[in-house]
């Protein structure tokens, strides 16, 4: 029977190969993917929306996040902007490139650079921030910025999701920006600069990949910043109705 041949052969082989081997020695190192850190990428638009203000202003807004990395280190590109359809210009255009590492169970630290290239003067900042999940499920993102000219500012973003059902989600957001020095050229005064408060009702239409939403957003400028805005003929407080979608790839 043919079957016996390989059997006998293997028996012979296994008996003949008896090299003395230190028993403590690892027989083969595991160099498979399993032994490598898991690499993950992601692309998300936390906000991708059309805003219509109480003064009939129409703007397009996005807040996007692209990353690649491991549990220990991630490279992130954070992009956000506001495009005025009327003026056909970017009122705001920020891009950050940061590296991110975990610093506690629920928080990461970020460091990198931020490029602001809206209509008007550009700015480059160094960024240092923390992001993570605070008790009671508040998503927190806080950053400190130092511009090339030495102007410092900080922002704090907080987000809370309320599950009306497992698909209908009410998301409350609060963003605040403060400056420690004035940067008149770009209309930033010292102190509390601005806040943006939003409330969005979304529905997870396709998994968590595509979740259309509607909502309201309130923007307000404060102190010197508000004065600068008035002086420049802009508004200091706006209400928006927003329609958009959260995307995750």
């Amino acid at each position, binding site marked *: 029977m043919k079957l016996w041949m390989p059997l006998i052969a293997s028996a012979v082989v296994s008996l003949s190969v008896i090299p003395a081997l230190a*028993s403590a020695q690892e027989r*083969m190192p595991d160099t498979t993917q399993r032994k490598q850190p898991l690499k993950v990428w992601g692309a998300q638009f936390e906000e991708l929306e059309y805003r219509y203000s109480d003064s009939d202003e129409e703007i397009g807004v996005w807040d996007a996040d692209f990353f690649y990395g491991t549990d220990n280190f991630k490279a992130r590109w954070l992009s956000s902007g506001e495009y005025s359809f009327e003026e056909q210009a970017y009122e705001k255009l920020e891009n950050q490139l940061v590296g991110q590492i975990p610093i506690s169970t629920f928080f990461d630290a970020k460091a990198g650079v931020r490029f602001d290239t809206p209509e008007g003067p550009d700015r480059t900042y160094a960024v240092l921030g923390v992001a993570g999940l605070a*008790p009671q499920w508040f998503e927190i993102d806080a950053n400190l910025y130092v511009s090339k000219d030495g102007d410092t500012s900080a922002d704090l973003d907080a987000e809370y999701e*309320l599950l009306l059902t497992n698909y209908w989600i009410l998301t409350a957001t609060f963003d605040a920006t403060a400056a420690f020095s004035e940067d008149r050229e770009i209309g930033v005064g010292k102190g509390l600069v601005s806040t943006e408060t939003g409330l969005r009702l979304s529905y997870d239409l396709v998994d*968590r990949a595509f979740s259309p939403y509607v909502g309201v957003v309130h923007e307000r400028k404060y102190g010197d910043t508000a004065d600068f805005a008035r002086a420049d003929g802009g508004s200091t407080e706006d209400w928006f109705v927003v329609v958009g979608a959260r995307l995750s790839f």
Partner: protein
Amino acid sequence: MMRTLVAGALSLLLPAIGLAGEYNLTVDRVTIDTGEFVKEGVGYNGTSPGPTLRFKEGEEVSINVTNNLDEMTSIHWHGLILPFEQDGVPGISFPGIKPGETFTYRFPITQSGTYWFHSHSGFQEPEGASGSIIIEPEGREPFRYDREYVVQLTDKHPHASERVMRNLKITPDYYNRKQQTVGEFFSDVSENGFLSTVKERLAWGDMRMMQADVEDLQGFTGMINGKGPEQNWTGLFEPGERIRLRFINSSAMTYFDIRIPGLKMTVVQADGNNVQPVNVDEFRIGVAETYDVIVRPKDEQAYTIFAESMGRSGYARATLAPEEGMEAPVPGLREPARLTMADMGGMPGMDHGDMGSANKMAEMPDMDHSNMEGMDHSAMMMPEGGASDPFYAKGSGLVPTAANGGKFLSYADLKAQKPLYEEREPAREIELRLTGNMERYTWSINGVKYEDAEPIRLKYGERVRFKFVNETMMTHPMHLHGMWSILDVGAGQWNPIKHTVSVQPGTTVYMETEVDAPGQWAFHCHLTYHMAAGMFRKVIVEGGPESTQAAFSEQPSEIGGDV
């Protein structure tokens, strides 16, 4: 029939004597139709799940595995005791099987029972690469049946596994659609009062833990033997016959609670090893576990095999019927379980609940029942008196109860039918804390992921005691390759022999292992995405018969193409 180390060693010298069988498996791209969606997957001999391999104890098998994929593959023979080079874990037992290559596994069959096989490469297993193994014993079996069916469960997800992994890493609750909502808050308020509900929510929110964190991966279709609930796999019987059902949970992530309304089930085997028969109404099968049950439908009617996922997000369904086409009612899903603070027992800094049922059971006096004292112990065996199971944290929200109010199998009910090993004191205890971070979807052992971990070193011939301390909120089915896991249920030499041991949140579970297999082995959580995220170890058995040490010492450089 006590197996001694000497006998084990002898069996290695016997491969050329006795039966020999040759088997062929091809690893193929296949299309899987769940009845709800169709997806591409990986299968064997053109189907997923693959065929049932039927071996005979004492046989020397050769299995030719041909890789028709365009990537590396491997087959692990789950639960089989064999030389480590044949165990099929790329990077640990062998390099893997290259595309287009045929690899021949050769090993002696030294056991009997129900087992399974699956790929250990990448995410091929959750993509469908698994099949069943039935090994007939040399002698007679300690039970009788007229016919038998394999009932292989899978949880088929519409997303590709790579995508699932990525989604879980980015958004750990991506697939959790059983989370607590505003509506549940108000219903809890009306049930427990406003203050206590708010307090409870705040306590969980403070820890940033979800009571609903029972099932990572929802949205799957439960399958039995490759058939979705609508496709309804059907096993035929003649009324009055005894039917042996060989349940295999080859799911990626899903625990199932299984019942057959109208029938008692007698559990006769767990993980391929015979257990003293236990009559139950329902049982929970962990990922990678197997249970053999005998049922005896006496009436000329159909019966539904209903496998409800532990998180109640899905189910698999099949039918036993006197003729094709007959159906029985399909029950609805029960309310999803909610974790309780008891399930947090294992978290560091929390009350360290040593649930070691085992311990408690062991303490059970030698049943000196001259009076009624000690009677409350019996509550542990009869979970119907308020849900309690010594293998769950006291007060756990996960304790299963039978849908009909009857008997739900507990690990505590499992007693070896025949002890495999002589009982002896373990040489040492190895503590393995099961750790993780749900918000980051990292999973580890003793806080260290596999990528950063040193191997666990055991000495050939020793008996070790493993202490699992589950510090996470999830259930982990821990699978040690190559050697048996003797689960401590407090029954001494009658402790059951398993290959996969489920450790519930907030509990400590002990198992002992006779280190009787030289080589190196994998040891991991069998939840696919926990394993891939780092809940994995290599075990090196030092010493042992020399002939088995040779294998890979001469070709280490080309190993590890499992990419």
